[in-house]
């Protein structure tokens, strides 16, 4: 007989029975909760962003833009595959601007004559550093990180950097 609680046998049996039952149902609830959690986790993994897989397949990631000398100061070079513009500022620093307008995601072309990016969708405009020149866009164009190895410019297209406006530390210098 189990009587670890020290009660009289008659009372203890009913009591233990009840406790066993509530213990079992608690275990069942726990397992059920665990199953739901697992199913939810798996679903989330399946539905979550699949950028890494895509970039592996397409060889995106670190993109070699070219040697530093190829880019004139004050120039804007479009990289269609990488979805960015490589900007070389007048002082020789580099910025990689994402080509997507921060208002509603249209692609902004560089208008060389006016020295500005103008969005065809809602007429937002950005200067060569990506700063907002005219609304409705509220944030500067997003950035990719730029690295210069042995005089070769490389752009990390894996991660976009959101920013409110241009700051000098965003520039990569030779």
């Amino acid at each position, binding site marked *: 007989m189990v009587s670890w609680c020290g009660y009289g046998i008659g009372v203890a049996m009913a009591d233990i029975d009840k406790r066993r039952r509530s213990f079992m149902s608690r275990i069942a609830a726990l397992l059920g909760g665990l199953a739901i959690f697992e199913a939810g986790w798996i679903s989330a993994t399946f539905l979550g*962003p699949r*950028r890494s897989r895509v970039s592996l397949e397409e060889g995106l990631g670190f993109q070699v833009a070219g040697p530093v000398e190829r880019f004139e100061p004050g120039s804007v070079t479009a990289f269609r595959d990488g979805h960015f513009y490589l900007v070389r500022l007048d002082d020789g620093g580099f910025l990689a601007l994402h080509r997507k307008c921060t208002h509603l*995601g249209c692609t902004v072309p560089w208008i060389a004559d006016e020295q500005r990016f103008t969005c065809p969708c809602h007429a937002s405009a950005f200067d060569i550093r990506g700063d907002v020149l005219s609304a409705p866009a509220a944030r500067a164009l997003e950035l990719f990180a730029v690295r210069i190895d042995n005089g070769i410019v490389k752009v990390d297209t894996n991660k976009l950097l959101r920013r409110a406006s241009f700051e000098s530390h965003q520039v990569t210098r030779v």
Partner: protein
Amino acid sequence: MAIADMQENNKWGFVNSLILHTRPVLVPAKALRFTHTFGLGGMSLVLFLMLISTGLLMIFVYEPSPERAYESILFMQQEMLFGRLIRGVHYWSANLLIAVAVLHMLRVFLTGAFHAPRRANWIIGLGLLFLIMVSGFTGYLLAWDQISYWAITICTEMLGYMPGIGQTLQRVILGGAEIGPATVINFYALHTIVVPLLLVALMTWHFWRVRLAGGVVVPRDTEENAQAGTDYVPYIPNLLLREIAVGLMLIAFVLVIAIFFEAPLGEPANPGLSPNPAKAPWYFVGLQELLLHFHPLFAVFIIPLVVVIAVVRVAYLRYDADLSGNWFLTPKGRRMAAVAATTALLLTPLWILLDEYAVGPVGWFSSTAPVISNGLLPCTALAVGVVAFYMLIRKQFNASKNETVQALFVLLVVGFTVLTVTGVWFRGAGMALVWPWQT
């Protein structure tokens, strides 16, 4: 005639209970009049069935990837027997379904058919409307032409403005930072499997609740159409024939439209080149128009949230009386609705024009943050205007709460319709205001 007698004499009763057990045996004679419901719910079902049957054919041809999507549709249209027609029927049914479902919701609201025992069905119906929108939206991308690509870009970017979860939600829906292969798969799975299954489940519940409530709302007796009691007639042939007639006419209509106006397929999607102007699908253009006038936080989050809560809550308010059954509830309700519609028809374009050409609060308070000058201030003005309208019209007409809430609803619906019409026809390059014939 007693109901039991009619059931006895109804020789089609066994067919009725065997095949058409989802339909009632007897229906109230007064609810049969076409202009009482315009058959909009039934039309939605017919359109859904047409979408399923054409969609089932198309999934055997369509290839859900950015490289193959557009070409597979071209192949279907050019090489396959009736491919153009099948896609046309699908396209027109989808657009009609959204319009018809919205009209159905308006009918239900304006005949007061959202009170108990139809309260739960009002909510289910809202869920159905949401799913129909999701269905249209996910299908929109699949054509993979310029218009569809940029419309979906704009809509998913709008999601990103939701505070907190917006950007995560956007990334989950797109399957990445931008529209790509993962997006096409996501939308394809949602469009062809997930949403249709959910629709079928909710529709079944919706129809069952209609039966549970004793069919559609029955017109109330008023002084004008005073008739003794409620006469019941057998479902067969009275309602059945009407349903078949409406269904067949609708199918014929869609076929004719699809033959003469084929589903558009523009240039293939080019992620590097945005068209000017770039617009959302027409049913979301009203939202896009809001975005031109309000700070994104208000345009895509707070205002829609308030509207959704209001539309749900409206079925759970405490009302003065049971006035349901007739269009616009009462003659007074009809006059109030007309006033509300006229008000919205005048004030919404005025607001749009002022915002476009006058300085407005953004100019006056240009030193404050845009979220205040272009969000909080105009939204507060809007809210005050709406509340003032509610109190004024209620006092002016000495109206019941039912009629006043209805007038407010009409005001908002007409206002949103004006926004949608403006966005679709009066916005040209750079979303500037233009006349429709100038685009």
